C-alpha cells in the first residue's frame, strides 16, 4: 500500500505546514531537508510505499532542480510535485515538460495541496511500481 509522501524542503516551517495541510488524509510524511538527504532517504525506504514526492527548488547542497532530475532518472515511477516560492513561468514550463505532475507556488491552500497530492498519487498508481535505481 502506497501511503507515504516524501517532503523535500529546507525550511522546517514549510515541512510542518505541509504536514498540517495533509493531516486527515491517508498519507504519512517522511521528510528531507535537501536533495542529498532525499536521495539517501529514497535509497533506504521501501519504494513501493512512496506515493508522491513534494520538492522545493531552492535548497542547499543538492537543490531541487538537480534532485528532481535525479528522481526522474532513477525513480521514474514516483510522481513529483514542485512546491516553491518562485512563481517562475519558464521554470514551471520546463518542469512540466520534464514530467513533473504539478508546479505549485507557495502560499498554496490546503484544498489545493490535497487535491494535487491525490491527483499525483493516482497517476503514480496508474503508472505502476517505481523501478529501483539502476
Amino acid at each position, binding site marked *: 500500500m502506497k501511503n507515504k509522501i516524501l517532503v523535500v524542503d529546507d525550511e522546517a*516551517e*514549510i515541512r*510542518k*505546514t505541509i504536514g*498540517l495541510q495533509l493531516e*486527515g488524509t491517508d498519507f504519512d510524511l517522511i521528510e528531507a531537508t535537501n536533495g542529498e538527504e532525499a536521495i539517501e532517504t529514497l535509497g533506504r525506504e521501501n519504494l513501493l510505499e512512496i506515493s508522491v514526492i513534494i520538492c522545493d527548488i531552492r535548497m542547499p547542497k543538492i537543490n531541487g532542480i538537480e534532485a528532481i532530475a535525479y528522481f526522474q532518472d532513477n525513480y521514474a515511477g514516483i510522481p513529483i510535485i514542485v512546491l516553491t516560492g518562485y*512563481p517562475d513561468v519558464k521554470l514551471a514550463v520546463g518542469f512540466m515538460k520534464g514530467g513533473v505532475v504539478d508546479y505549485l507556488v*507557495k*502560499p498554496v491552500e490546503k484544498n489545493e495541496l490535497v487535491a494535487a497530492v491525490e491527483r499525483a498519487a493516482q497517476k503514480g498508481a496508474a503508472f505502476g511500481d517505481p523501478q529501483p535505481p539502476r
Partner: protein
Amino acid sequence: MTSQIESKHDYAAMSKAELIAELTRLREAPIARPIGYDPELAGMLSVAPDAIVAMGEDSRIRVFNPGAEKLFGHTAADMIGRPLDILMPDRFRAAHGEHVMRFQTSGEQSRLMTERSEIIGLRADGSEFPAEASVSKLPLGDETILTVMLHDVTERKLAEAELVAAKERAEQALIQAEKMAAIGTLASGIGHEINNPLYAVLGAAEAIRDGNDLSRSQEHARDIITYCRHIAEIIKNLSGYIRPADAHGLEPVNVNKAIQEAVSMAQLSLQLDDIEIDQRLEPVPDIAAKSEEVQQAFFNVIRNGLQATGRRGTLTIESGQRGESVSVRIRDTGPGIAEKDLAKIFDPFFTTKDPDEGEGLGLFVVQQIVKKYAGTIAFESEVGQGTLCTIEFPIRNMTEGTR
C-alpha cells in the same frame, strides 16, 4: 578715453604683419613715454572688442580702453592713474598683488591668468562678474607695462553650471534606474522569502479553522505570530533600499549595517545554494552619506562577488577603521578577472555576465556612489585567484556613533 589721444595710423585697417612690424618698432623705439599716452597703441586698443587694461610698474592704470569702460562701467578718465586692484573685489586684492609681483619677475612674456585662479571683476555699480583674463609684459624703455585682456564669461559659467547640474541629475537618475533594475531581480527572491512564511501562516490559520483543540490552536497562533514577525523583518530590510535616494540629505551611516542589509538583499536575489558568506565586521565610526546609496554600492559588489563565486565557495567581507577611513574588503573565491577586463570594470555597460544577469552598470554605479562621498574603490584580481574589492569611505564629522 581716447578723445585726447590722436592716432597717426588707422590700425584697424592694417594687416597682421603690419601690426607686428609696428609693435616691434614701438617696442624697440628708444622712448620712455608711458604707454597710456602713446597715440599709436591707444588707437589699437580703442578698437579691441575685449577689455584691455594696462598698468605700469607702480600698479597704476595707464590704459583703460572702451571695452574696459563697457565691461566695468567706469570711464577711462576716472580710471587712469588709479590702482588696478580697484577693479576686483576686496577679497582678491592681496593675492592679486602677489601674482603681479611674481609675474613681473618671471621670465614669461604672457600668461592666461585663469589657469591659476578664477578672476572676478568688480563693476562700478558694485556687482561682480567672472572673467577670463590673460596678461602680457611689454617692455617700454625702462619700464615694463603689464597689459591685461579680460572678457566677461558670466554666460559661459552659467552654461557650465547648468551642464554640471544636468550631469549630476543624470548620474542620480542612473543610480536610481540601476537600483530599480536590481529591485526587479530582487522581486522573485523577495517573493520566495515572503511566500514561505506566508504559506506557513496560511497553513496554521487553516489548522485553527479546521481544528477544535484549543491548546493546538494556541500553538498555531503562536507560530503565525512568529511567521508574521519574520515577514515584517524582511520588509524592514528592504524598505531602506527602495526609498528614492534624493528624498533626504546626508545622515550618519553605519557601514556594517549597510553591509548586513546588502548581504540579506543579495541572499534574497540570488540562489545561494552553498556559498558561505563570512562577515568579519569590526566596530567602525559612522560615515556621512545616504544610507541606501552605501547599501546599494555594497549590494552591487556583493552580488557580483556571489555571482562570480558560482554554486560553491566563500565570500569574505571584512570591515574596520584604517586611519581616517572606514575600510571594507570583499573577497570572493570566484574565477578572478582577466587583466584585460580589469581596466574596464567601471565602464558603463561593460559586462561579462549573461544579458539577463546584468546590463553592466553595477560597478559603474558603485564608483559613482563611492566618489560622491569622497571614497575610493579598487579591485585586485588574478585569473584563478578570486577577486578582492576594497572600498574606503572617509570618516567625516557627524561621526559620534560606533558599531
